[in-house]
């Protein structure tokens, strides 16, 4: 039987199963194959807060969504074309997102009475009519796997564990993914347990063959490689890109990296990643809490290191007092906030953009800090370097606002040439700067307003800094009222004067009436939505903020250029508040705070409504 091959320009797949089913690994492997094949892609992992929620329950469902295409894409996609549901819970939890007509590959072996009951299915949905509007492929994945592995010296339980590889094989066949990589991967991963390696490979191949031979699948699909900018690519998640960005920042600033951090979801992986790279002279310090994490980073900065602390919202709240100390002592420091759904503990594994105003204002006194927010997983790399550039040049703590969506999502990354990376190094001060040969630790640079950075070990520049207000120039303790006013304004002016690039507006024909703006991780969905609008002949301009403080110099002008400005945010209007206050522009907010990224379709609708209104 020769099967039909259909060409598609894009596909969205979602693997869903129990926490223990290995869906993240399956997704990762499919992603790797897809990347290797040359599609553009974007991924969205989604896992429960529990380590292992009880098997078969709704809270235990873990999923991985992958969007790949023959052109450049911007998001992990709104609605899957295919759902792989390893059990009834996975089906139930994900069906709502699945457009009618799309494919469901369900592991019938797990649709037992007990499992169905666990999630409240009265009848087996694979057997009644309830799924008639979808194309259901009922596959006994578990038993097929066990069968395929009969010749192996494995317990049944161990054999069953390979069912995710069977599913991966099947999907790889379905979408013409290359297979060598996965086989090599499995060989390496289980290098010490060759039997397991072989079994997994066998399961993978059995899945492939199953697709090839059975009649359950009459069509397979091809998605041509995308025409991406030439270069060397790898797939990378936001957290990994951010960690690499910090390493690059250390190299490019010629400062040893010191990370003081306390584990917290979804930021911990940055700590994990950095702790692997000690050969770069990186010190990672797992502190007793967030305050110690930032404190140690600040202490290291005083000693001449590139001090970094990584955390999520609750940790930023705890670090506030110490960040304030960094503001007055005017030392470089990077605070990475991988935002998650709040308030309080909130939903640790879900994404949100609700820490912007905390980053701006969450400290006592007037204590301005620059804020940079990456707009995609890859951009985490560049944003980290940019944050470091600002921190080092202006001697200031910098907030770097990533989020859960960027952190765990991934996409192909065109590797930069190291030689193209900016040199962000600054000289330490080594000689006195006062008129009388004395050292003035608070004498500012005329252009940047930065104070000198003289580190211990430098003879003749011994000085003392601290959190009490300091006299301009000498840095001695000062309670003088006018000095305080001057210092408050100088610190503000320094941050306000940071050189950030102008806002770029994407408005191809320069005739849009509506400008859609955003910041951080909403870039992809907004841009995708605008593509839809334009595809339908509509007009909308887009501009995206990577610098939240200071704002680009042309912001006011850009905002005023359009009849309407729409700002979707995954919060209740935080950037909108800043822009409205600053420019008195009646920014229209669109806010959903569901712990999930926006969908392009949803935003397209919102944009269209704004275009159409009055």
């Amino acid at each position, binding site marked *: 039987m020769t099967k039909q091959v259909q060409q598609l320009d894009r596909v969205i797949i979602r693997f869903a199963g129990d926490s223990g089913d290995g869906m993240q690994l399956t997704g990762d492997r499919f992603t790797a194959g897809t*990347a290797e094949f040359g599609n553009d892609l974007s991924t969205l992992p989604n896992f429960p807060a529990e380590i292992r929620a009880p098997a078969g329950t709704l809270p235990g469902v873990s999923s991985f969504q992958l969007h790949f295409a023959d052109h450049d894409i911007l998001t992990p996609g709104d609605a899957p074309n295919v759902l792989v549901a390893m059990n009834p819970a996975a089906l139930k939890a994900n069906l709502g997102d699945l457009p009618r007509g799309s494919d469901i590959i369900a592991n019938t072996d797990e649709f037992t009475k007990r499992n169905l009951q666990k999630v409240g299915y009265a009848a087996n949905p694979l057997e009644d009519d309830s799924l008639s509007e979808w194309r259901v492929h009922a596959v006994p994945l578990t038993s097929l796997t066990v069968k395929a592995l009969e010749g192996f010296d494995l317990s049944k339980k161990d054999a069953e564990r390979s069912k995710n590889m069977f599913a991966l094989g099947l999907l790889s066949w379905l979408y013409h993914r290359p297979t060598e990589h996965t086989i090599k991967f499995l060989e390496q991963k289980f290098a010490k347990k060759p039997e397991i390696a072989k079994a997994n490979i066998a399961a993978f191949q059995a899945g492939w063959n199953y697709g090839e031979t059975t009649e359950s699948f009459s069509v397979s699909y091809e998605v041509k490689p995308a025409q*991406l900018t030439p270069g060397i690519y790898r797939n990378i998640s936001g957290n990994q890109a951010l960690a690499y960005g910090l390493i690059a920042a250390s190299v490019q600033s010629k400062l040893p990296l010191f990370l003081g951090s306390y584990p917290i979801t979804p930021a911990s992986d940055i700590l994990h990643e950095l702790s692997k790279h000690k050969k770069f002279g990186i010190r990672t310090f797992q502190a*007793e809490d967030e305050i110690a994490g930032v404190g140690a980073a600040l202490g*290291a900065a*005083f*000693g001449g290191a590139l001090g970094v602390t990584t955390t999520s919202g609750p940790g930023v709240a705890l670090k506030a007092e110490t960040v304030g100390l960094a503001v007055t002592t005017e030392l470089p420091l990077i605070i990475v906030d991988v935002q998650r759904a709040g308030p309080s503990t909130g939903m640790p594994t879900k994404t949100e953009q609700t820490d912007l105003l905390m980053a701006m204002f969450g400290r006592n006194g007037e204590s301005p800090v620059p804020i940079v927010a990456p707009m995609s997983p890859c951009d985490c790399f560049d944003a980290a370097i940019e944050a470091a550039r600002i921190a080092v040049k202006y001697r200031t703590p910098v907030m770097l606002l990533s989020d859960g969506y960027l952190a765990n999502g991934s996409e192909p990354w065109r590797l930069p040439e190291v030689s193209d990376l900016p040199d962000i190094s600054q000289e330490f001060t080594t000689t006195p700067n006062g008129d009388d040969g004395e050292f003035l630790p608070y004498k500012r640079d005329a252009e940047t307003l930065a104070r000198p950075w003289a580190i211990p070990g430098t003879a003749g520049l011994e000085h*003392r800094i601290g959190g009490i207000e300091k006299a301009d120039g000498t840095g001695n303790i000062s309670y003088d009222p006018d000095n305080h006013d001057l210092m408050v304004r100088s610190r503000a002016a320094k941050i306000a004067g940071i050189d950030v690039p102008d806002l770029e507006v994407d408005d191809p024909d320069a005739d849009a009436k509506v400008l859609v703006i955003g910041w951080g991780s909403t870039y992809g969905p907004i841009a995708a939505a605008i593509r839809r609008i334009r595809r339908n002949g509509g007009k909308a301009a887009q501009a995206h903020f990577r610098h939240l403080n200071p704002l680009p110099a042309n912001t006011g002008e850009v905002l005023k250029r359009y009849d309407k400005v729409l700002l979707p945010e995954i919060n209740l209007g935080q950037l909108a508040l800043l822009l409205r206050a600053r420019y008195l522009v009646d920014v229209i907010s669109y806010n959903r705070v569901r712990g999930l990224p926006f969908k392009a379709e949803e935003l397209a609708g919102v944009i269209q409504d704004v275009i159409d209104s009055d």
Partner: protein
Amino acid sequence: MTELLNGRGLSLVPKTDVKQGLKDFKSDQEVRWCPGCGDYAILAAVQSFLPELGLKRENIVFVSGIGCSSRFPYYLNTYGFHSIHGRAPAIATGLAASRPDLSVWVITGDGDALSIGGNHLIHALRRNVNLNILLFNNRIYGLTKGQYSPTSEVGKITKSTPMGSLDKPFNPISLAIGAEASFVARTIDSDRKHLQSVLREATAHRGASLVEIYQNCNIFNDNAFEPLKDPEVRDDITLRLEHGQPIVSASKAVVRAASGGIEVVARDGVSEDEILVHDAHNPDPSIAFALSRLDEPAFEHVPIGVFRSVDRPSYEVAMAEQMEEAVQQKGPGDLSELLLGGDTWRIG
């Protein structure tokens, strides 16, 4: 595996060849404690002790928290960081961990170290970062004008406890030993010689050293340590701890108790060889801990000196070793190599 570990105390800190004196360590800042404050004596003792170390002045850093005592760094002509309340051990940890070539000191008060900063302190001790932590214990909050502190005695009447405080105080020595400290000592502001002898041992120790200094706050808790200064009784109640020496005061001696612990008895009732000989280097901290309990009831007898001083890898050295090992195993970091390190593919 590297020579780093061979370094004791401040051996990694560059030495000066200039002759230093007390005045080299005085800054130009006016000292602003209350007249009569015990902090003056400690400052003078430290300023006159530092030259003895023969270190490059620029490689010495004093980090403090907030409190009267935490003003200390301003008065020393070294690098200094007057930070925020309770966080000095954390800040100093980052500094010391990344700069093994510095002599890093932490100056802290009983509130700063044991109240808001208690956690950072105990973690710094167990980690054994190379810090000299001087805890100025005046058993009161000085800077905020006289509230009771975690070392104030039960029943203390202060502004915030007009009917007397309820909480049992910490014994900083017991707490530090319970927190796996490798070096723990106690001294007193009024005895410069003893204070300096303790500093000498603390600086010779590589790792975290906690030195509790009984300090008089003559404004809010005057005479808190009077018995130790009173010529009538001080020699009787002060048990001097010296490694290898029997633990005695003028009239008392520490011996093993029948119960299995230790106790203080009249010195003339026991023979020399019954008296406990102090072993500061005992890996088991149990006896050092037992010694720290001898001050209950308060001031009946008070051990001073080095309770415990044992060698253990120092945090920043171990950290540096791992970095060296990583380089040895994999070569120095190369950014291009890192970026190219995953599964890559080429387009175009």
